Structure formats: C-alpha cells, structure tokens
C-alpha cells in the first residue's frame, strides 16, 4: 500500500520502520502479558472454563443458539417492519405539500434524536399497561417496537438521501414524457434509488443487530448477550470465556454484513446501468445535523 503521506521507504526508512515495529510489538506484548497474567491469576484461562464451548454441544444448543435465534428474530422483525415505514416517511418528507413534509420531518427528527434504549423502556411499559401482550412476549415486543421507531426514521433519511442523490435529469425526463408525480416516484425514482440505498441499508442492519443487545441488558429479553450470565452461572464463573465466545459471534455476524455492504457498494459503483449515486451511511446516522452531513464516509452509524 502506498500513501501520499510518506515516500516509498528507502534503506534508512526501512530500518526506521523495523525499529518502530519492534517498539510497537514490545508495547503490545507488554499489554498482552499484563492481560494474560491478570487472566491466569484469576484462573480465567483454565481449560475447565473454555472446555464447554469445544466439547459440550449443550453449550451451543441450550444457551447460545436460542439466544442467537432471538437476536436474529428481533433484528429481522425490526428490519421488515421499519423498511416500508421508513420508505413512506422518507417519501413523505419529499412531498410537495408543506403539511405532509412538516409532519413527516417532525416524526423523523424526533425519533432520531432519542436513544433507542429510552424508546424500548417506554414501549415495554406501554405494552404492560395498555395491551394484553403476555409478559413472556413483552421484551421481544418492546425491543422490536423501540428498534422500529428509531430505525424507521433512520431508514427514512436513507430513502430521502437516495432519492435526492439521483441526477436531476431523471425526474425532468419523467416529467417531459408526461408522467404524473406518483408515476415518476414509483417507476423512475424509487427503483433507481434502491440501488443507491442498498449498501446503507445493509449497514443499518448491523446497527439493528447490535442494538438488540440492549434488550438483553435492560429488559430481560433472552437474546445473545443475556445468555452470557446464565451460561457463566452454569459452567462455573467462566465470565471471560462466555463473553469472548458471544463477542466473536457478534463480530463474525456483523463483519460478514459490513463486508457484504462494502462489496455491494463497490459493485454498484462499477455497474454501468447505475447512475453512480450512492448514500453515505455516515451522513444519515446521526441526528438533527440536517444538511450538515456530506464529507466523510465509511463510518456506519453508532448504536
């Protein structure tokens, strides 16, 4: 890899790089050694604590898989419900009618500005007070509701950005051949903007998957994170081992999704049929910084 920040290394620079590498390795090694000794002091590295994940299939079937299943289920429900809602809100924000724009804009900005956890806590309480959802199902309902409210508004911004990113000529041409507003949106703008939005939507799934963990920590939703405590209770306080396994599952799952998103983006940018328009997930992930986006790229939205 070459960078504009430095020349291709000559003999002296190569030597210097080696010295820096050695210093860096020593520094990382010291930290690693400190972590290792802290872990082994507390007996967290004993084979006893890690064995269940390699030799005992029940660790996977009774603890990890049901948790992962709930995580994936909640994420899938949220995405499926939030996507059409987000599309409606996003298109409403582009409406010609002032009132539709104002109402949709207020809803979107409101739910984007509030932490998902607050939405989940509220949904949980609202379901217990105003509905007859059984208390077993309630955490799942609350998590999905919270995620839908938040992500519908984020997806609305993605949809809006996707439509706005299309070249102006597209809607002008549609107007010129006599299409009505609805027709222009349905048959010209939306189909094309979907390709522009796809990578941003896939990155949003990562955010949703990560956010399901909130339900496990705060709402007794039995998802992947909450299996850590039951698991480490059962297998004898193997907290570190359980956390490591669960974290690795999340990392692998989300890494596949992020890699897929960037592969999709590269492919779509190259495609000859695409207009080359692309939504930058970083610009829509935050909140209220309306119009302040632009510049920067590559960061997925934080939780």
């Amino acid at each position: 890899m070459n960078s504009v920040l430095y020349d291709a290394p000559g003999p002296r620079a190569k030597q210097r790089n080696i010295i820096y590498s050695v210093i860096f390795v020593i520094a990382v090694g010291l930290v690693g050694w400190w972590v290792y000794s802290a872990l082994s002091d507390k007996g967290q590295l004993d084979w006893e604590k890690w064995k269940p994940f390699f030799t005992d299939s029940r660790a996977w079937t009774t603890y990890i898989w049901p948790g992962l299943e709930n995580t994936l289920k909640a994420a899938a429900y949220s995405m499926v419900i939030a996507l059409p809602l987000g599309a409606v809100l996003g298109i409403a924000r582009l409406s010609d009618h002032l009132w539709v724009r104002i109402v949709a804009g207020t809803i979107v900005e409101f739910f984007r500005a509030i932490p998902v956890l607050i939405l989940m806590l509220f949904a949980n309480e609202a379901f217990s007070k105003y509905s007859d959802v059984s208390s077993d199902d309630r955490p799942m309902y609350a998590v999905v509701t919270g995620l839908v409210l938040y992500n519908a508004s984020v997806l609305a911004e993605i949809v809006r950005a996707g439509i706005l990113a299309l070249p102006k000529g597209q809607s002008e041409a549609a107007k010129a051949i006599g299409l009505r507003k609805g027709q222009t949106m349905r048959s010209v703008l939306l189909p094309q903007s979907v390709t522009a939005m796809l990578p941003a939507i896939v990155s949003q799934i990562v955010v949703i998957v990560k956010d399901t963990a909130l339900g496990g920590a705060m709402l007794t939703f039995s998802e992947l994170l909450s299996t850590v405590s039951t698991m480490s209770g059962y297998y004898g306080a193997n907290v570190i081992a359980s956390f490591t396994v669960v974290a690795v599952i999340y990392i692998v799952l989300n890494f596949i999704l992020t890699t897929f998103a960037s592969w999709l983006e590269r492919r779509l940018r190259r495609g000859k049929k695409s207009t080359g328009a692309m939504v930058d997930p970083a610009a829509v992930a935050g909140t209220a910084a309306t119009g302040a986006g632009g510049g920067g790229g590559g960061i997925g939205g934080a939780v």
Partner: protein
Amino acid sequence: MFDFLEGYDLWGAFWETVKLTGLSAVGSLIWGTVLAGMRVSPVPLMRGFGAVYVNVVRNIPLTIIIVFTSLGLNQTLGVTLGSEDFATINFRLAVLGLTAYTAAFVCEALRSGINTVPVGQAEAARALGLSFTQVLTLVVLPQAFRSVVAPLANVLIALTKNTTVAAAIGVAEAALLMKGMIENEAQTIAIAAVFAFGFICLTLPTGLILGWVSKKVAVKR
C-alpha cells in the same frame, strides 16, 4: 401536571449523562486520533493493529462492551480504575467502554477526512523535507479535522445517545432514572415525554451548532 417529577433528581441524572458524554468525547477524540495516525502510518504493523481494532470494536454491540467492563474487568479481574466507591468505579468503567467504542468511529471519520486533503499538500510538505509525523501533525491533520467537523458531530450525537447504555451497569444517568420512574409512577407517557425532551435538548443544539461550525471552518477549495 408534572408533579410526578418531585422527589426525583432529574437534573442530577441529566448532568451525569452530560458528564459521561463530555469525558468519553474527549477520551475518544484522543484515542481515535492516535488510531487514525496508526492507520495511515508507514509502519505496516501499526496499520494492521489499527484496522483490526476498528473492525473488531465497530462490530461488537456497545452493550456487550459496557457490560463486560463491569462483569469482566471489575468483578472478575478486579479492575477498579483507582476508586473504592461502587458508583465511581462504574462511572469510570462506563467512560472507558464508551471511549473504546467511540474511538473506532472517530478514527474512521478522521481517516476519511485525511483522504479529503489534496495529494499536493502532502507532496509539498514532503518536498520540504518534513518527516511523516510532521506531515501528519502540521499539514494534514489540521485540515482533516476542519473537514470532518460534521461527521464528528454525528459521532458526538450518537455518543450522547449511547451514554444511556451505561444504565446497564447501574450508572445513575437519565435512562436509569427513567427506568426507575416508569416503574414507580403512573404517568408513563408524560415521563417518556420529559426524557425525550431532555435528549432532544442535548442532541439538537449539538447538531445545529456543530453544523454551523463545520461550514465556518471548512477549508474552501
């Protein structure tokens, strides 16, 4: 109408949220800048470390990181971060977790900012005989920072909202107070409205002010 607020330290809870946000923001700005420096450095090992750190941390739920700091670091390994008091330990652990997580996003924002600096700038700096560190700290980073104010504002807003996750390890901030209030009081919707309003008050001005700043300081090219 808002009688139910009596007996609850609403200001205290939101002040805790602000403190969490502020400290984590400063921490993640520093650590994120160091990471970004590593990711563009000429030493392959440091580049690799930066890339692995960002990709790993970005894909772990923040909730896992925060819960781990409490269950793993504190209760299993006995890390206390120099405090005996339970509340202070958890507060510091939450700041540590938030910093470790947010730094990955700051790093990515900064790296994209570094990419917006024209090639000629770095080439000119190198032609003057500046070393990599000098090129980065004197020429490239100052311009990169000015171009990423808006993305960093998004990261800061996300961080403000993310501080609610600290409630999972019992830090007495807004979300934990809301959880407590909502269980004890009848006015669910009014309580939710108060906390929603509180967060809008925190995030909306951040976005507007930093949006204005980003236009002000942008390098016109």
